[in-house]
């Protein structure tokens, strides 16, 4: 628990299918995400960034290699243990379809706790709800919220269990620039004010520039790293990715 890295991948390979139809999504990726940082993973389509996220979250098992979450190797865990891991130590935000349509906002937020059979800490819950700015819509159903509001609820749900790391898969992909900006600022805020660690996958240079650092993926391999990104530098890096 006292490692500097919240998430560490070592030589991770992921191959889908077999024989002639085999697709190598990740080809020996080694990377570390330090605690209390906001890291973006960028790359063109087919670069393996979604697979990267899935392996990091324990949603998919790598074909070879090691994934360490706060020091625990998750490749060895059984399905049940992985599930419990997802409840307590990982928070997840998807691009779309994040919320159960039958539940209201508050129920969606407290869902992981309820699944774990734990009661929410009222103060932390209050803090999270105020932090994402959704306190006035707690009784509403997802269908009654805008896209941006839904993402904020998703982020709140990801935070409610005080995870080691929050993983976000294109969280601004379905939002307009203004709302997207708000979500990115929120993600940045939870890192700087609450001390969370956030790993975000995106293809948008503007979104990537909200992070502290950017990892570039191309054709399943790590293709570079950029600290203190700006949109222009990220975009330039992206254009030259194939040449590395």
């Amino acid at each position, binding site marked *: 628990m006292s490692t500097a890295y919240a998430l560490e991948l070592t030589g991770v390979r992921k191959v889908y299918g077999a024989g002639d139809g085999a697709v190598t999504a990740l080809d020996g990726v080694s990377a570390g995400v330090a605690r209390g940082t906001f890291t973006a993973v960028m790359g063109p389509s087919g670069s393996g960034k979604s697979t990267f996220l899935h392996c990091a979250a324990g949603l998919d098992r790598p074909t070879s290699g090691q994934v360490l979450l706060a020091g625990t190797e998750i490749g060895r865990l059984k399905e*049940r243990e992985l*599930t419990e891991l997802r409840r307590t130590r990982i928070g997840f935000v998807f691009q779309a379809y994040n919320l159960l349509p039958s539940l209201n906002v508050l129920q969606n937020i407290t869902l992981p706790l309820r699944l774990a059979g734990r009661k929410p800490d009222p103060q932390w819950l209050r803090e999270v709800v105020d932090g994402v700015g959704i306190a006035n819509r707690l009784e509403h159903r997802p269908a009654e919220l805008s896209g941006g509001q839904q993402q904020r609820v998703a982020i709140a749900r990801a935070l409610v269990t005080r995870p080691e790391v929050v993983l976000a898969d294109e969280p601004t992909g379905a939002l307009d620039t203004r709302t997207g900006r708000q979500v990115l600022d929120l993600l940045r805020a939870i890192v700087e004010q609450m001390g969370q660690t956030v790993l975000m996958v995106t293809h948008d240079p503007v979104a990537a520039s909200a992070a502290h650092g950017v990892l570039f993926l191309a054709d399943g391999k790590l293709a570079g790293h950029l600290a203190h990104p700006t949109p222009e530098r990220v975009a330039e890096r992206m254009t030259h990715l194939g040449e590395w």
Partner: protein
Amino acid sequence: MLDLAWQTIRSRLGGFAGAFIAILCGTALVAACGILMESGLRAGVPTQRYAAAAVVVGGAQSVRPPGADALSTEQVGEQPAVPAALTGRIAAVPGVRAAVAEQSFPAQVVTRDGRVLADRESLGHNWDAAVLAPFTLRGGGAPAAADEVVLDADLARRADAVVGGQVRITTRSGPVAFKVSGVVDGPSRQSALFFTPERAAELAGRPGQVHAIGVLADPGVAPETLAERVRAVTGGAEVATGVERSSIEFLDVSQTRVLLLAIAGSFGGFALLIAVFVVASTLALTINQRRREFALLRAVAATPRQIRKLIGTETTLIALVAGVLGSLLGLAVAGGLRDAFAAIGVIPADFGLAISPLPLLAAVLLGLGAARLAAWAAARRPSSIRPVEALGEAAVERRELGRGRLLTGWGLVLAGVGGALAPLFLRGDIAAATSSMATLVIVVGLAVAGPQVTGLVMRFLVPVLARLWRISGYLAGANGHANARRVAAAVTPLMLAVAFALVTFYGPMATTTAAQQETTRSTTADYVLTAPGGLSPEVAAAAGRVPGVAAATPVVRTSVITATPVGDSVEVQRTPAQGLAGEEAGAALELGVDAGRLTDLTGDTVALSRSEADWLDKKLGDEVEFYFGDGVPAKLRLVATYTHDLAFGDFVLPVALVREHIGGRLDDSVLVRRQPGADAGAVASALSALPYPGLGVAPASVIAAPDGGERQAQFYLNLVAAGVIVGYLAISVANTLVLTTAQRGREFALLRLVGTTRRQVTRMMRLEALATVGIAVATGTLVALIPLALLNFGLRGNPVPAGPPAVYFGIIGGAVLLGMVAIGVATSVALRARPIDAIGLRE
């Protein structure tokens, strides 16, 4: 988990409608069957003639051969008798005020214009038994002489008889004049005539035996206690109190109770099984639609067990509500079933139902259990969904079915086809039963291999459809081909329903028609004589003496009970039998005798069908053991075997012997054969002129096959059962079609945005509907046709199934209507939204 389940149900009411209805109907049926079963046990028709008798002793109502276990008994088919000597022993039992023996025999009044009053069962009794009801004198006095009779008031009124006047009464002999000495008031389910005890004993014709012994109790003695004491001295006779007294009184009531128990038991079990199937498939559909939801839950860290628990809880909630409503509905269904059975004639019209909360509670619990079972089966797939699916669009299904599933499916189909060949080698009811089993196996096999079959057919249909309708047909074909699983989900229950309905209707038709044809072929007589209520044995003799008549044989239709050792236990069965006069029968009937001679059929002898003789392993001259229709054991010598068993049943006995074991009933008919060259008209009028009231002379071609009544009742029962099953399957089909169509809203929106007109989309769906229904109807017909054709060929020599073609078209029409309406409605609802909105919509 509970409120999560509750929330889901509240927001997705439509999706659960199918499961709700299936559980509702299933519980209603099970509750109704439970009520019928309880009625079979406890209720019925209240006793009438024995109302004043605390305990009634009668002949054993069922036969339980040595070696048979408690469940293998068989109801007697005729009124059993009780030895008269028991009366003295019973009278000596403490607590008995009096023991009165009752004679009961057919006795009908003949009106002045020659009409026989037999619309109600009309029985004669000895006068001292009147005290058991009691019948009370309204006018006149008890019969004192052998030619005096007392009538019940209703009968007297209908016969226009007055005290002191004359009536003509027919019994086992021809009509005889009696003087009416009195009129009584009393229960009127049957008509009652009272004679002096001596005359009654003479008219009953069973020396030493009585129908029942009624026991009047000392004041203060409880009936059950008295029954115990009486049981101790009566040996194997039936001792009844309370509502069971009517079983001894009315033969049809006693048979009804057993029948109800059997029907209700198997019916209810069947309904429950089908309910599990339908609920599982409707649930599987909703669950499949909620795939993304479950994947999200898995991603947010619900364990597979929690997902299964969620589905289980949702199902339990629905099952509780549907179950309670269903079992209340079951009360109405029980009443309806009772009326339906009474209309068919399977139970007496005044059979009452016993209603208690026990069957209702049992139905709710059983419905709950069935729903949980279905939920467990349906929940196994979503609980193993990989969370990654939440992030993807897995809308097109995997292409191949597992090898194991394919092998199983086709293996079953082959096995079924093999079974369908049975009628070529077996005969009679076994052939029919094997045939319907085989159909079921084929259907199950096709259901298992369903998607592959549908895919294959679709592949042929695609170019045809595309040719005929350039756009709609092309789309429809492509859809069906790519989503064969979805199409198969709708085709399978519809095919099942069609095949099932066809076999249930046309299967028994084959046997009935074959029996009828064989009967007609086997009857060489020219005339058949009948009368309402039966014919006196004297009629056959009188007909035989008419000039121009070559032979006249009486025919008595009864049943016998066989006990065959099967493995460790004994199988007891009641089978139809006929009583014929050996010498004359050969002239009027063609039994296809293949060994021995029918003229030897006198005294203690029997003739068996060839298949029965082989089954029992008996040769000519061997002794055959079985039980007569009234439960008395028989040991008779085999003198002949014959082959026309469809027309005559498996047992033919000498009529004189049979008459002693039919509870005093009269002959069913007399068959008369003219001498060649005799004047047809003269013979016919001479026969009509026989002095027997109500005698009808008809050409022998109108003879019905034996057992026509019971087969008919069995047939209607099967229809009711099939109706239930088909109804269930219809629910499943409708649910499947509606849900799968509704979920394709986005697809329709896409089509419309890309340039397909609304009409083309509607036509595409209509074509898909036609294709789906068409495949189901075609496979269903084919599946039913193979066993039916084989059965008809084996039984009748003609592979074209017997029966009205109108029913076939009705079944097909119903299936087509169901499919088109379900898809049509769902499509128009799905097309209502503006395409640009619909394309953004999630489920």
